[in-house]
């Protein structure tokens, strides 16, 4: 035991000696949280629109002003004819063109009907849909203002809506759990696989293997510091989300930390497994970073809900551990529910940990080749 402890101490010293790596280790989650909190959002703001006004009357003027004065849009120009549309889309600044037909105002007053078309740049589907929807809403709003308040008693059904868990519809509720999930698996798998492969690559693993330490002790000793560092990372992200975004942990914090430990352990064993199949560091990094990064971001339900994917992805994503942890962390943190609601996901993570562990033990070579 004493031998083992001094080995762990040696590993800690290795890590703490490298200030830069430590700094980045904690810098990555902080940067991610801040980017998601302040820099990016799915919603549109200041999207460029251009106006193709073939009518040039008072009403089209008013309506275009109304569109542009909203926060959603910003005018990128007035077009003269249809051929310009392709031109402005190709320049990329304009997301949609609003076309007023000829004699728009006149027809609206005389015939009570006029038409307007929204041509959106479909190469960015999400932006295109949002721009179209917002424009429609603003135009409809404009029409009802034009006609004055409509007096009718036709509204029979009065729906009332309650936004559960997140009444203010903030995006933090989505990304804080996502960032924790993403960061833990990537950093843990990366660090463990690299640190063990490094010993293999430089031949120092042999030195360790001939030492009185047992192979299991060596691996645990190597992984232990990262376990603690990752755990500190979890605390850091939770503290950040609490102080910066005011997002508390609604459920039991003990349970949350316990689940986080399980997830860290799972990620570390995944890292060990990667190290057993890699012969050098480049390979380990390739697998744990390039191999894991995109699938984790895209198939975990972090940004894109799995329900919306084609059905087969419901099965494909089953092998992605982050998928389960995201459910666990959302349930505890935001819904405030307990183990009865998430035992299934917990069991799956435990099984995955055991599988990774078993495979690593089988693959771990203590002899020279």
């Amino acid at each position: 035991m004493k031998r083992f402890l001094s080995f762990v101490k040696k590993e800690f010293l290795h890590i703490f000696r490298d200030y830069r790596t430590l700094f980045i280790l904690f810098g990555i989650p902080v940067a991610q949280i801040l980017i998601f909190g302040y820099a990016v959002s799915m919603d549109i703001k200041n999207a460029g629109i251009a106006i193709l006004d073939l009518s040039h009357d008072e009403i089209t003027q008013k309506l275009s002003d109304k569109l542009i004065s909203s926060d959603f849009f910003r005018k990128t120009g007035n077009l003269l004819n249809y051929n310009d549309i392709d031109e402005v889309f190709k320049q990329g600044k304009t997301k949609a063109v609003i076309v007023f037909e000829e004699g728009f105002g006149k027809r609206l007053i005389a015939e009570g009907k006029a038409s307007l078309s929204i041509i959106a740049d479909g190469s960015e589907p999400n932006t295109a849909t949002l721009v179209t929807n917002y424009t429609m809403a603003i135009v409809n709003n404009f029409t009802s203002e034009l006609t004055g308040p409509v007096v009718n008693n036709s509204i029979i059904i009065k729906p009332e809506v309650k936004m559960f868990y997140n009444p203010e519809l903030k995006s933090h509720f989505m990304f804080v759990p996502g960032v924790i999930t993403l960061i833990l698996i990537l950093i843990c798998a990366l660090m463990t696989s690299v640190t063990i492969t490094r010993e293999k690559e430089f031949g120092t693993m042999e030195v360790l293997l001939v030492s009185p330490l047992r192979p299991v002790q060596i691996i645990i000793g190597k992984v232990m510091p990262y376990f603690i560092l990752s755990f500190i990372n979890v605390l850091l992200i939770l503290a950040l989300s609490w102080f910066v975004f005011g997002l508390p942990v609604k459920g039991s914090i003990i349970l949350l930390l316990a689940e986080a430990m399980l997830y860290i352990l799972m990620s570390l064993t995944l890292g060990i497994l990667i190290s057993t199949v890699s012969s050098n560091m480049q390979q380990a990094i390739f697998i744990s970073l390039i191999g894991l990064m995109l699938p984790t971001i895209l198939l975990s339900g972090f940004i894109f809900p799995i329900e919306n994917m084609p059905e087969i992805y419901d099965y494909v994503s089953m092998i992605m551990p982050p998928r389960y942890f995201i459910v666990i962390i959302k349930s505890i943190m935001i819904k405030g529910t307990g183990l009865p609601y998430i035992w299934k996901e917990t069991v799956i993570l435990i099984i995955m940990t055991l599988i990774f562990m078993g495979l690593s033990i089988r693959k771990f070579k203590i002899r020279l080749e």
Partner: protein
Amino acid sequence: MRTILYLIRKEFIQIFRNKFISKAIFAVPIVQMLILVPAITFEIKNVNLTISDKDMTPESRGLISKLEGSSFFNVSYSTFSENEANSLLHRNKCSVILHIPYGFGKDIIKGTSGNILVVIDAINASTAQLSWAYLNGVIRDYNLDLVTKNISSIPVSIQPHIEITNRYWYNELLNYKYYMLPGILVILVTAIGFLLAGLNMVREKEIGTIEQINVTPVRKYQFIIAKMVPFLLIGLVDLALGLLIGKLAFNIPFEGSILLMFSGATIFLIAVLGLALFISTFSSTQQQYMFVAFFCMIIFILMSGIFTPYESMPQWAQKFNLINPVAYLMRINRMVMLKGSSIHDISRELYSLIVIAVCFTSLAVRRYRKTA
């Protein structure tokens, strides 16, 4: 020139000697593109809906059958108990609950308004908003049905009405694969080039073989160029493979000039590889390099506008993106591929990339020391 060619040859031999890496640099992007590109949609469908109908009248059933008929909602449970409904929400079994209280049908027949309560799981705020908008639309529709049925003669006044038609150019059906393929491709090309080039350089330092180069008359710039060219070529081959997958597997049209896209990608790769080699000059171990590279990559990718609209970012974020090569290639790729933008349309992006490429590469050459 011959020196550079020899050095490049050496690099290629070293890269392809590693059996895993030599296969993975081509196989991993192909597999990931095939699996990930079709996965992503922003379209919402099959939102699980729980109905708690305590009214059980033809009026309430009419509304329910309207909801059952939509592909947006998937009526998965019905229950009378509020606790049961809430527990379904807690357990992720549904994300919307519709409560129709007792007396709803009666109120409607009487002509007073019938109240209903909608509860939505709002953890994902944007899905919640869309679900609500959609549900509200269905309710309004049903309302209108009831109005026309109950009051057969409503005064149809002629009110001004603006007819709105809308179209999506370049991607008529809003196929998300069009949007995701160029994006994912940029990420993969970046990740492979950025990581491997830097690691390769640091590895030479770590195992000491860089000393053997340093004592030869090889010039600094020759060495840096020789380190860049192989990964530049690998990146371009990956790009070509990705575009081929887009064409063959997903049938995504390529509107613009392929030459233009590859020129853009070449400048981009020089910029990224320059940055990689620059970072590698002050990393002494592969672990150190990997962490710095990971940090840069995550920030570059998230800020690049791969999943989120570029314009809605705040001013400071857009300023930051002036030095983010990934953001430029993200736009170039999508514009050239999907819209057929010309060199004139993307000139600003190209110029900026050239400036970044020159800066990073000269920094890398300057920082690289032949003396220990």
